[in-house]
C-alpha cells in the first residue's frame, strides 16, 4: 500500500503549482473577476500548451491517457489559485463523452476537448434549469437527459449567462429541447466530476487556511501576534483538520475512480460532501480570522469565499451527497 503520489504525479503537481503561481497572480485573478468575462484566451492557450485539457482523455482521442488522480492534482492547484478557467467544465464534458459516447461521438468531440481547441461544457447543477460552466464559447454542450446524457450544439440551445456572486467563473443557464443522446452509462463520469470539484474545494480551502495562518502570525493586537491566542489558534487547528480530512477523502476517491470502481459511488459522495463543507467553513473562518480587512473588497479572500460557496453547490450539494451516503451505508 502506498497512499502517496508517484514521482510522475509529484512532478505534475509541482509544475502545475509553479505555472499557476506565475500565471494567476492575485492581481490577475482580480482583474479577470472584475471584468466582463472571467476567462482570458491567452491563459487558456497556455493551459492547452501544457496538455492539461486532455489529461484524463485516452491517447487514441488525442489525450494524455492518464487518470482521475492526475486530473484532481491539477484541479486542486487550480482551486488553490482560484484560477478563472473553463478547465473543469471542459474536463467534465470530456469525461462524460468518453464514458457514455458512441465511437462516432467520441471521435467527433474528444480530440477538440483534449487539445482545448474545441472546448466542451457540461451540466453541473439544475435549479431547475440546467446550469453549465463556461458554456459561452464552447463547441459542444453535455446535458443530463433522464439517467443519461445528451450532446447539444450551442446554436441549438438557449443560453443566458448568470451573474453569480462567484465572478471567477462563468455560469450559464441553458435550455435545449433537442440534442443527440449518448448510449452509455454516465455514473462513473459523474463521480469523477464530483471528485474533481471536491479537489478544487480542497485547493480553495488550503489557500484560505494559508492566508489565515500567515495573517495570524503577523497581525499584532494587545501587544502580541493574534495567532498566539487560543481562540484564534484553535480555530486554525480546526481549519487544518477540515482541509486534511477533505483531502484524504478526495485523494482516496480519485484512486477508487482509477482502480476500484465498486468503492467509487460512496467514495465520491463522501469526498464531495466533506470538501464542500470544509471549503465553506474554512473560508468563513478565514474571514473571521482576518477580521475587518477580510470583509473589504480590497482583500482577496472574498473571491475564495464565493468560489467555495459556488463549487459547493455544483455537482451535488453536501446535503444531497450525505443523503446518498446514508443510502449506501444501509439506511436504504
Amino acid at each position, binding site marked *: *500500500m*502506498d*497512499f*502517496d*503520489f*508517484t514521482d510522475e*504525479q509529484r512532478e505534475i503537481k509541482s509544475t502545475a503549482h509553479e505555472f499557476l503561481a506565475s500565471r494567476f497572480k492575485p492581481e490577475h485573478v482580480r482583474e479577470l473577476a472584475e471584468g466582463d468575462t472571467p476567462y482570458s484566451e491567452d491563459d487558456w492557450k497556455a493551459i492547452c500548451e501544457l496538455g492539461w485539457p486532455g489529461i484524463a482523455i485516452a491517447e487514441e482521442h488525442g489525450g494524455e491517457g492518464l487518470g482521475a*488522480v492526475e486530473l484532481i492534482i491539477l484541479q486542486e492547484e487550480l482551486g488553490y489559485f482560484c484560477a478563472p478557467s473553463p478547465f473543469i467544465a471542459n474536463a467534465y464534458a470530456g469525461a462524460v463523452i468518453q464514458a457514455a459516447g458512441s465511437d462516432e461521438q467520441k471521435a467527433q468531440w474528444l480530440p477538440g476537448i483534449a487539445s482545448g481547441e474545441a472546448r466542451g461544457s457540461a451540466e453541473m447543477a439544475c435549479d431547475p434549469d440546467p446550469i453549465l460552466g463556461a458554456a459561452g464559447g464552447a463547441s459542444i454542450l453535455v446535458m443530463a437527459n433522464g439517467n443519461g446524457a445528451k450532446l447539444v450544439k450551442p446554436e441549438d440551445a438557449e443560453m443566458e449567462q448568470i451573474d453569480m456572486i462567484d465572478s471567477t467563473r462563468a455560469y450559464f443557464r441553458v435550455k435545449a429541447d433537442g440534442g443527440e443522446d449518448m448510449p452509455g452509462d454516465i455514473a462513473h463520469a459523474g463521480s469523477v466530476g464530483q471528485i474533481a470539484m471536491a479537489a478544487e474545494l480542497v485547493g480553495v480551502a488550503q489557500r484560505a487556511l494559508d492566508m489565515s*495562518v500567515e495573517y*495570524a*502570525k503577523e497581525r499584532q493586537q494587545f501587544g*502580541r*501576534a493574534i*495567532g*498566539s*491566542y*487560543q481562540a484564534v*489558534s*484553535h480555530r*486554525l*487547528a*480546526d481549519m*487544518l*483538520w477540515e482541509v*486534511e*480530512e*477533505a*483531502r*484524504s*477523502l478526495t*485523494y*482516496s476517491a480519485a*484512486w*477508487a475512480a482509477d*482502480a*476500484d470502481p465498486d468503492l467509487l459511488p460512496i*467514495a465520491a459522495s*463522501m469526498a464531495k*460532501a*466533506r470538501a464542500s463543507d470544509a471549503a465553506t467553513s474554512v473560508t468563513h473562518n478565514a474571514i473571521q480570522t482576518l477580521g475587518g480587512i477580510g470583509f473589504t473588497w480590497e482583500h482577496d479572500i472574498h473571491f475564495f469565499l464565493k468560489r467555495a460557496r459556488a463549487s459547493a453547490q455544483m455537482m451535488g450539494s453536501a*446535503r444531497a*451527497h*450525505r*443523503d*446518498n*451516503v*446514508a443510502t449506501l*451505508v*444501509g*439506511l*436504504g
Partner: protein
Amino acid sequence: MDLTLTESEAAFRDEFRAWLSDNHPGPAPRGGDQVQFEFEREWQGKLHTAGWAGVSWPKEYGGRGATLIEQSIFGEELARAKAPRPANVLGLVMGGPVVIAHGTESQKERFLEPILSAEEIWCQGFSEPESGSDLASLKTKAVKEDGGWRITGQKVWTTFAHEAKWCMLVARSDSEAPKHKGLTYFLMDMEQDEIEVRPLRQITGEAEFNELFIENAWVPDENVVGGEGNGWMVAITTLMNERAGLGASAALGLANSLEELVELAKERGMADDPLVRDKVARLKIGIEGLRMGALRALTSTMKVGIPGPEGSIAKLQWSSTNQALTELALDIGGPEMLAKDSDWAYRFLRSRANSIEGGTTDVLKNIVAERVLSLPKLR
C-alpha cells in the same frame, strides 16, 4: 498512489485473519473485574504462543518485526473480528518499546519476554492530580540512596495497577533542575507495601483506573531507564508509541459501531428520518476520513520518517466521531437507552473520556497550532 495491499501485505493479512478465525476466544466478559482480566491474560498467552504478541517489536526481542502497514493491518483485523484486547496492552504498546529503545541489555533480557507472555503486567505512572496535560510539572519525588531510589508521591489514572508487576514511573530526581530536565524514568516494582492502590470510580460506575499513593517505595539503580535526568525524553517515546497505535484500527472499531447504529435506526423505523440520515452520513464520512488520513500518515512515516499534517488530527477525529456516534444512538433509542444496563448508555458515558485521555483535545489543538501550523507559542 496505490491503496491495494502488496502481495506480502496481503499474505500477512490472510495469515493473521486465518489464525484469528481459528483461535478467536469470543467476546471478553465485561465488568473490568478479575474474571475479565484472566480471560484477557489467557488470550494474550494464545497470541504469544503463535507469535502474534508484539507484532511491532523487532524479531530479536521476540516480536514479529512488522512494518507500520502490517501493524496497521494487524490492528484492523483485530477490530474487524471484534477480538478482545490482550491483558498487557500497556506493556506491549509502551513498556516494551521503551525498554527496546532506551533500556540496557540486561533490562531487555529481564523485562521483555514476560511482557509478551503477559506473565508480568505493566501499568503507567505519569499523571498526577496536579499534573495532567502539564506533565512535566509533576511532583512525585525520587531521592537517591545507596544502590537505588526512594519514591514518594501520588499518581492517578493508572490502569491495571491491581494486576501490575511493573509501573512505568516518571518522578522528579532533581528539584533544582528546570522542570523538563529534573525527571527520571523508573520501572517500579508494584509488589511492595509502600504503594497503596485505590480504585478510582468513574462516571460509568466502574473503576478502570486507580490512584497510587507512594510512600518511600524502593527502585534499585538497575531499574532506571535511559539514565538519570532523561525521564522526559524517555516518556515522550512512550506517549508517541501510544498515539502511533491509533488510526486505521480505531476507524475499524468505529465502523463496527456504525453498523450497529444503522441497525438500531432501522429497528426504530428511523431509516427515512432526514436528520438521522444526515447524521449517520456525517459519521461515516468522519470514520472514512480518519481511516484514509491514517493510511496517508502511515505511508508518509514509512517514506520520510514522520507523518504529514494529516497525522496530527487522528486523535481529534476519533474522539469527536465516537462521541457523536454514541450521542446519536441515545437520541435514536430514546429513554430506554438510558437504562443502567444499556450497552449504548455505557458507551456514551465512556466516550466522554475520549477527548481527555491520551492528550486532551485542547492540548492537541495547541500542538497542531504550534508544530504543524508554526503559529507563535502561547507561553
